[in-house]
């Protein structure tokens, strides 16, 4: 039958409903006395971008490496693209793109040589030029891997996964340790992968990343999923939370922050305060009461307000809320 367009990344489904891209049931893995994954259930739909979100040591990497067929679980069921790892692992690997945490490619090879090596492993590799262009490493094509920046190395790692033209893409902490600009570049790249119809499963401990990229996220802690849903739904579950961002002009010269956290927390509806690069982030249950109280407070202190904006709470707030409650007094 004729394919409708040139894009052929989604095979015609024999069944009316395609199988989930990933199914985990009762997954469990221990290393000695440490329980890395504790009875974890998960289902990822085809075409979805799914994020495993959690702190270091939460079991994200163990979970994703079990999915990748690199680690055997102690118990539980794993179905990747409807297949089990013990049937035909090589055929399954043809359909997966994998980017591990902290892979160091050989520094003495060039970008092209590295990509060509990985292309040779697949029966139907994507053309070299297409992959180079996708990760924007065309200018560095003959540069040694050892000379690349952190962001470029990470894009090379993605290129080595993209050569598979994967149906399912696993990314373990794709932007950890990168500067903001490289991170944004990588996000654009992952979004491009999503547009090709590829299912993406990624781990991250950057809330911003999960919020921007993921259709759904699972918040993982101590090997268990403690919250699951779309980023928006998770935030809504917290209650009608807002964050008020403001900056105060330096009336009294540079140096010490002129406002104490205690003063801000005393404002009507205020729940918490964080600072980032001279900006105050004031969490509030009811912005319409906190904002007037803030303005009155600043007015009384004679502090000029440089910038003021309010936005809805982020996943970061959800995470602090959830794990804070779980971990407090622990």
């Amino acid at each position, binding site marked *: 039958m*004729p394919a409708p367009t040139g894009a052929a990344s989604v095979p015609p489904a024999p069944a009316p409903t395609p199988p989930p891209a990933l199914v985990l049931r009762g997954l469990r893995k221990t290393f000695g006395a440490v329980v890395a994954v504790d009875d974890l259930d998960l289902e990822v739909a085809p075409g979805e971008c799914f994020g495993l979100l959690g702190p270091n040591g939460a079991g994200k990497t163990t979970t994703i490496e079990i999915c990748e067929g*690199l680690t055997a679980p102690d118990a539980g069921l794993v179905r990747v693209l409807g297949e089990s790892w013990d049937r035909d692992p*090589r055929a399954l690997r043809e359909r997966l793109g994998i980017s591990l945490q902290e*892979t160091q*490619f050989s520094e003495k090879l060039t970008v092209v040589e590295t990509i060509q090596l*990985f292309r*040779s492993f697949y029966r139907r590799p994507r053309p070299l030029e297409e992959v180079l262009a996708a990760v924007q490493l065309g200018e560095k094509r003959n540069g040694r891997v050892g000379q690349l920046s952190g962001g470029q190395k990470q894009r090379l790692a993605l290129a080595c996964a993209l050569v598979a033209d994967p149906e399912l893409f696993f990314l373990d902490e794709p932007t950890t340790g990168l500067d903001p600009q490289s991170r944004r570049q990588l996000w654009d790249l992952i979004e491009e992968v999503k547009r090709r119809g590829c299912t993406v499963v990624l781990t991250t401990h950057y809330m911003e990343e999960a919020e921007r990229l993921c259709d759904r996220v699972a918040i993982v802690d101590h090997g268990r999923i403690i919250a699951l849903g779309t980023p928006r739904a998770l935030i809504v579950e917290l209650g009608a939370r807002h964050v008020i961002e403001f900056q105060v002009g330096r009336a009294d010269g540079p140096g010490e922050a002129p406002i104490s956290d205690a003063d801000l927390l005393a404002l009507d509806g205020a729940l918490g305060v964080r600072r980032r690069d001279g900006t105050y982030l004031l969490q509030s249950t009811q912005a319409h009461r906190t904002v007037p109280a803030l303005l009155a407070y600043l007015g009384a202190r004679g502090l000029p307000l440089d910038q003021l904006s309010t936005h809805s709470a982020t996943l970061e707030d959800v995470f602090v809320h959830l794990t804070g409650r779980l971990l407090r007094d622990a």
Partner: protein
Amino acid sequence: MPEPSGGSSPPAPRRWSERPLAQLTLVRVREFVREPEAVFWTFMFPVLMTAGLGIAFRSKPEETVKVAVLAGGSAAADAAARLRRDPHLSVQLLDDSAAARALRGGKVALVLATHAGDGDLVEFRYDDTRPEGVAARRLVDDVLQRQAGRRDPVPVRDLAIRERGSRYVDFVVPGLLGMNLLGSGIWGIGFAVVDARRKRLLKRLVATPMPKAAYLASFILSRIALLVLEAGALLAFGALVFGVPMRGSFGALALICVVSSLAFGGLGLLIAARPRTIEAASGLMNLTMVPMWVFSGIFFSSSRFPDLIQPFVQALPLTAVNNALRANLLEGATLAQVAPELAIVAAWLVASFAIALRIFRWQ
């Protein structure tokens, strides 16, 4: 059964250069040649070693035997004058302490002391465990006795035969070749594998459909490719500069080199099968190589070790390799004649690969 997906065409037949084995082997070779230190240790070091040893131990037939005569009295002066008449001797008159020092330091092979009052007794002082001491004693004795009027009842004639193949440089070049094959097999494969494991590159490769056998085979192929260069450089240098003979067939030599190189590569793979750090692997490599450097007859014959440990010495792969190389190069031995050595090497090859593959840690 792989079914072709959707509208895409079946995979185009790939050129050999786009296949995993070719790509992996290219990677190995590229990594090697882009590491200047590795190139030096593999190619230049054995050549420099040959040059140094060949010059230090060059055969000097015109060299004289150095002896000292203890100064004091006319008997000593008389003995020195007689000895000086022989062109093979270089004689100096020294006092007691200087003579003792010269003997200890190897500057003279023998000290001659005269005892005028004791019936013209002559005393030879020399180290009887050193060949040059023993030779000097015979020569000096001979000269003294003849000059004193001894007549030899059996007439003799000297016919000098200087043959290539019996000099030290001829002995050491096959030994250095064997040592080089050992080093590059174990270091070349061992470090590359452990480094890839440490950098999690091994894990990344296993996450692709790469055939694992191709990964290991790439080491073997690259080893053979580099072997041609490293063995060729050393043998060519030895043959052209020092005239080291190559009496055996070239095919047999090539086969010995390939089998040896693979056996050492297998040892490298075995060493690298599990360690996660370079340090751990280095320890194992030294543990493997140092005994062979000592016992396997690189710089001196392994037959010098006592009979008690000979079974151990002869079972070492490098001993067998060195013996086979010397037999081929110096004696022109056929493959059948070096079959026992090749069997030992082949046994190491099979055993090390078999164990390495069984215990190999891919992650």
